[in-house]
Structure formats: structure tokens, C-alpha cells
């Protein structure tokens, strides 16, 4: 049963990532915005980032999806360390309702 659920969820996730146009409606009309980022005034990582956007929206999207959770985890762990250092118990809470 557990394997079956894993397969269903895995295939559903794969289908969504392989066919993002399925969710086109979520964008409020589904029309793509074709913009070429102006890299002339940019330097360093900003210029690289804008160039990546111009070269491939797909790679840009994949990198964004990889970066967001990574950055989230890093910031989350840092905030955890700070709060634990202050002395707040971050592992339990009292049950205040059923």
C-alpha cells in the first residue's frame, strides 16, 4: 500500500513538472510574458542570472525551484540556532485543545 501511494504521488509530481502548461490557468489567463532581460547595466552574478534567463527559461525555472528550498533550509537552520541559543524550547508545545 505504501509503495502504491509512493508511485501515485511520484507519477503525479512528475506529470506536473513535465507538463507545466497544465497549470497555465494559474497564471491568470495563461499568456506567457516574453521579455529579454537587459544585461547591459548589470555586472557579476546579476549579469549571469539575467543571461541565464535570456538563454533558457527552463533552466532558469529549474534553478529557481532548486534555490528556493535550499535558501529556505539555510535561513531556517540559522534562525533555529539563534532561537535555541536564546533558550526557547523548539521541540515541544503544550496541547491547548483536543
Amino acid at each position, binding site marked *: 500500500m505504501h509503495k502504491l501511494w509512493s508511485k*501515485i*504521488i511520484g507519477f*503525479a509530481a512528475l506529470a*506536473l*513538472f513535465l507538463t*507545466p502548461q*497544465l*497549470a*497555465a*490557468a*494559474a*497564471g*491568470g*489567463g*495563461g499568456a*506567457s*510574458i*516574453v*521579455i529579454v*532581460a537587459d*544585461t547591459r*547595466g*548589470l555586472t557579476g552574478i*546579476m*549579469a549571469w*542570472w*539575467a543571461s541565464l*534567463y535570456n538563454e533558457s*527559461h*527552463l533552466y*532558469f*525555472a*529549474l534553478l*529557481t*525551484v532548486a*534555490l*528556493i*528550498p535550499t*535558501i*529556505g*533550509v539555510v*535561513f*531556517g537552520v*540559522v*534562525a*533555529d540556532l539563534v*532561537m535555541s541559543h*536564546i*533558550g*526557547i*524550547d*523548539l*521541540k*515541544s*508545545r*503544550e*496541547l*491547548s*485543545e*483536543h
Partner: protein
Amino acid sequence: MDWLYIMMPIAGVKIFWPGLIILGIGVGIIGGFFGMGGAWMVTPGLNILGFPMAFAIGTDIAHMAGKSLISTMRHGKFGNVDYKLGLIMLIGTVVGFEVGAQMIMWLERLGRVDIVVRYMYLVLLAFIAWMVFHDVARKRQKEREAKAAGKPVDALTTGIEWHKTFHKIHIPPMIHLNVAGIYCSAWLPIFVSFLTGWLAGILGIGGGLIRMPSLIYILGCPTHVAVGTDLFEVMISGLYGAATYTFKGRTELVAAIIMLVGASIGAQIGTVATKYIKGYGIRIAFGLAVIGCALSIILKLLAGYFPTHKALFDNTSTVLVLGLVTSLSVYIFLKMLDGAKKEIAAKKGV
């Protein structure tokens, strides 16, 4: 003061970056506390900072995914996330969302539907606000009755108990949701998630505002578990949304990361605050947030009816939303601070 502005590489505009951090902190606190993404709060804030609207929704969703991940991690450690429930609901949410979104596109081709959608949203928000405050009033009434009868007041009592009726539906397969403490038909969470996903798709929102009360009142989750599980859902749908919006060129990752710096702090504060504020405190604050959201929509509708005063209504709506974000986040922060102080003092006393 040029250093306070940063060039957005894709949108090509200069943005006041401390404003993004402050906005991130505010919506991070509220999101971590209530278990919602809070797009209705972020969009006016980004608008004020001069962010192009074409990028506002995608950027908001991208930062929301990261913020919800942080909150889910924290809620998970508190035992507030029912992962089994979250995964079951994910199927219904995705299918329901797509059905709703495709339906609204079909309706748009038939004619102008945005006014109808706004009215529908308003009715739904009014219903949620009524439900929350009716629940609070019922709980207080029960407590008064118990006192009058000389019985001890049960601290775990709840006001509205519609979930007990839904739990009587015994269509197989039946499931145990251990973290939420629920035994029900598997079709109940699937149906609830499909319905909330469908509404979110039609209304063009993330859905936390609808899903959180549904988890409490229809499924019968304790408030803290509803918040944590909803954030788990927001995290996954946020990642999916970030992928599709970025693919369509509607995300400014630099802005999302800057907001995430603030939101990571805010999300921790909001999540830890749920330790110190009782379930009904969360429900009351949530009800107030829903009223604020409804008022902002009324002002947007009025702006449509009175075009000569459009600027006035739009500005009032923005001030209202940002005022609500500020006051709620300050309230939650102070409560968290107070609770943490007492906890640390108690530890030192021991």
C-alpha cells in the same frame, strides 16, 4: 542613499530592498502563525515598493514556498504537521485547483467574470468570518453553561463541532490520522481538499485562507495541526507555483530571496508564537485577518463602481491591508516575546 536600492535583473527596476525585508518579516510572522501564504497581503506591499505587477504574483509565490518550508520544519518539530493528511489532501488540492483554474478560463472566454469572482470571494470570506466568531461565541456559551451548572470547565472544549457529523460517514477506506487524532473516511480529506482547491483555482488564490478553517471545522483538526498541515500544503503548492510562474517569466528571484531573508525570521517568530497563544487565540486573530481581507475587496469593488474616486479607494485598501499586516505581526511578535520571556524565566527558576 543609492545603496538602499537594488536593481532587479529581470524586471529592470530599482527597488528599495529594506522594504522587501520588512514586508517579508510581516507576512512571514502572519504566515507562520496562521498557516497561509498571504498573497493578498504581499501584492499591495510589492505594488507600493514599485514592483511591476507582472512579477508580483510569481515573486510572492516563490518567496512563499521558501517561507512555508521554514515554517513547516518548525511546526513539524512541534508535532503540528500531519504529513499523511497533507499528502492525501495534496492530490485533491492539485486536481481541484486545476479544475477551478480551467473553469475560470472557460468562463472568461464567455464573458467578464472578475466581478462575479470578487463577489463570490466576498461571500466566502463573510462565511468564514461568521464561522470563526460563531465558533468562539459557542465555546464561551458552553463555558458559561458549565460554570452555571457548577461543572468543571473543560479546557479542550470546542464551539462548533460539525466535524463529528462528518466523521460518522463510514465510506471505505477508513483512515487513522494519528497526529490530528482523527479516524474518518479517506474520502473526507480528499473531498475537502478538492473543494478548497477548486475554490482557490476559481478565485485565483493560494487557498490557505480557505483550507485552514476547513481543516478545523470539517475535518476536526486541532488548530495547531491545521496550521502546520496547511503550511505543508502551501509549501508544496508554492514550489509547484514557483516552477510554473518562473517558466512563464513572472518571477524575480532576487526580490524573492531578499524577502525570504525577512520571512525566515518572521516565519520562525510566527511559528514559535503558536506555542504561547492558545488555539482559540489563533482562531480569533485569523477571523480578524479574514475581515481585513474582505474589507480590502469591498474597497476594490467600490473603486470599480466609482471610477472618479478610484485612487482614493485603492489607496485606502492598500493602507488597510498594510496596517492590518503591521498590527497583526506586532501583536504576534509581542505575544511570542512575552511567552519566550516567561519560558526562559521558568527554566532559570527551575
